[in-house]
């Protein structure tokens, strides 16, 4: 009930308040939502595009304008729909940061040319390059994410059941803890030369190294999770007369899920560092390769495109990971 009421009043008057409250309150509400520094920054960003260019090369200012207009429209739309003031502030602040960065970047490159033009392309050129290279970037994202997923999921599929089993069997568990501590302490990147000798392709070596980088922390997290499950939880399962499989997968697994996620998170972070590094050394595809390859040719526009794309991909994957974690642990308050 409450929800629908709020929603309809938002669409009618653009405010949280319902119709009966005084106009002044509604006014201040609109003010709070739409009169913000972020929009002033947008206007500044638009205006500086009309300053004369100092660069001898094309600056692609229209790409900045289109990008900023798109972002501004999204901002206005979200401003109407985000309910919590704190969330709205956060969102608007991030957008303001992007505008601020674009203003400084435009001024320092295209407009006043205070940075070395070869190393610092104007923002419009980066957007233009991004659109021009779209399919290439997409293929490289697929290549990198594919390798990560393959190694990562394989590691989870092996490490979690093994960790459950080892952690559950008291004797094996304590030995396995020490062994995994030793093997897990070896930085996975040092396996690369051996991996190259063992395995036929760059891709298989990458999957192998990501597997190792994920396997040990997940195994350690699972085992420690299992060994720390409250004895009372185990007793309540025992008195229900559960069989071994149910005990492991319906009781011990969810009870140690939080610890398992700590291992998974660690594995994911290391995997990205490893893969992008590895791609810079020996690959013919992937995001690391894209960055390294073009910077070798002095194409710093594409280098910056690559950096931004790597950032976006990692943020999106972490976001997805957090959502999955939140969903699976939703029973914790």
């Amino acid at each position, binding site marked *: 009930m409450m929800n629908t009421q709020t929603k309809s009043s938002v669409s009618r008057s653009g405010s949280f308040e319902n119709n009966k409250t005084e106009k002044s309150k509604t006014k201040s509400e609109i003010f709070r939502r739409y009169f913000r520094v972020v929009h002033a920054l947008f206007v500044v960003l638009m205006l500086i595009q009309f300053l004369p260019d100092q660069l001898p090369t094309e600056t692609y200012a229209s790409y900045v304008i289109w990008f900023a207009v798109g972002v501004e429209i999204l901002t206005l739309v979200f401003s109407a729909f985000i309910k919590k003031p704190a969330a709205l502030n956060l969102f608007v602040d991030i957008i303001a940061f992007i505008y601020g960065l674009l203003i400084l970047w435009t001024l320092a490159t295209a407009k006043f040319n205070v940075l070395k033009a070869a190393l610092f392309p104007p923002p419009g050129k980066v957007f233009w390059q991004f659109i021009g290279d779209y399919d290439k970037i997409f293929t490289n994202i697929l290549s990198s994410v594919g390798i990560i997923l393959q190694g990562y999921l394989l590691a989870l599929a092996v490490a979690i059941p093994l960790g459950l089993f080892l952690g559950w069997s008291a004797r094996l568990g304590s030995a396995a803890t020490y062994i995994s501590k030793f093997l897990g302490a070896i930085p996975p990147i040092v396996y690369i030369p051996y991996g190259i000798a063992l395995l036929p392709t760059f891709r298989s070596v990458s999957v192998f190294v990501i597997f190792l980088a994920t396997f040990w922390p997940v195994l350690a997290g699972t085992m420690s999770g299992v060994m720390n499950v*409250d004895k*009372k*939880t185990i*007793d*309540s*399962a*025992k*008195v*229900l*007369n*559960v069989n071994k499989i*149910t005990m492991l997968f*319906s*009781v011990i697994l*969810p*009870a140690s*899920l939080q610890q398992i996620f700590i291992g998974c998170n660690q594995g994911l972070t290391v995997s990205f560092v490893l893969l992008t590094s590895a791609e810079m050394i020996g690959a013919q595809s992937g995001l690391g390769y894209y960055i390294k390859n073009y910077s070798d040719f002095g194409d710093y526009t594409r280098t910056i495109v690559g950096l931004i794309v790597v950032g976006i991909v990692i943020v999106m994957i972490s976001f997805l990971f957090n959502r999955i974690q939140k969903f699976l642990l*939703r*029973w*914790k*308050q």
Partner: protein
Amino acid sequence: MSKIEINHLTVNYTEKKKNFTALKNVSFSIEEGEFVSVIGSSGCGKSTLLSILEGINNPTEGEILINGEPVTGTGPDRGVVFQHYSLFPWMTARKNVAFGIKQVNKTASRAERYQLADEFLEKVGLEQFKNKYPSQLSGGMQQRVAIARALAMDTDILLMDEPFGAIDAKNRTILQELLLELWENATPRKTVVFVTHDIDEAIFLSDKIVMMTANPGRVYREIRVPFERPRNRAQLVQTKEYNKFRNELLAMFYSDIVSKIGGEEVVL
């Protein structure tokens, strides 16, 4: 033959190279359909006794027979309610009950299990909370779910280890009445072993009270509760007989404790 026979049960623990006798030569029996409370101060071994009945601990000497068969581990003939942590926090109330049902009834379909779970959650007055997780329920509600699960599993025997020990006084009486009502109205009645340190609770609920004493834990007295069923608390507590019986029990309870400890401060 009694439903449960506890024969010369002795339990020794070794803790830091010190031997500790939790139970010494405990024997008594429980009839089918009987509600028996085990009462005593802390350290008298009442929870240890129950854990052996549950099958999660083993005695050093002696044995427990259920229907003449020795207990060697947990079994589908016993349902258990603990003071805390009976429920799995990652399962909703409904799922918790359905999970219990699944363990004793492998043939029931998922829909049948959920339907039965809903039925029992309704019996304990929680039909509106069936999709809540334990962390979203109060302590009293959690114990209601635990009771619903134990009942839904339809075991012959119900083992309850201070199930209302952590519940506030008002809710405790409500839960006692609920438990009694569910137990009295079931046919056949289940055999219940109920551990508590609350004398009023024991009198109100039980057919028989087994009073235990500490250091080492052993049976002090077995007392039959003389009051008719169905019991009505409000009427019962006003009768002379009730107060006389209660005072006798209290005297027994405290004389034992005082003689043991020699008049020092007693923590129950």
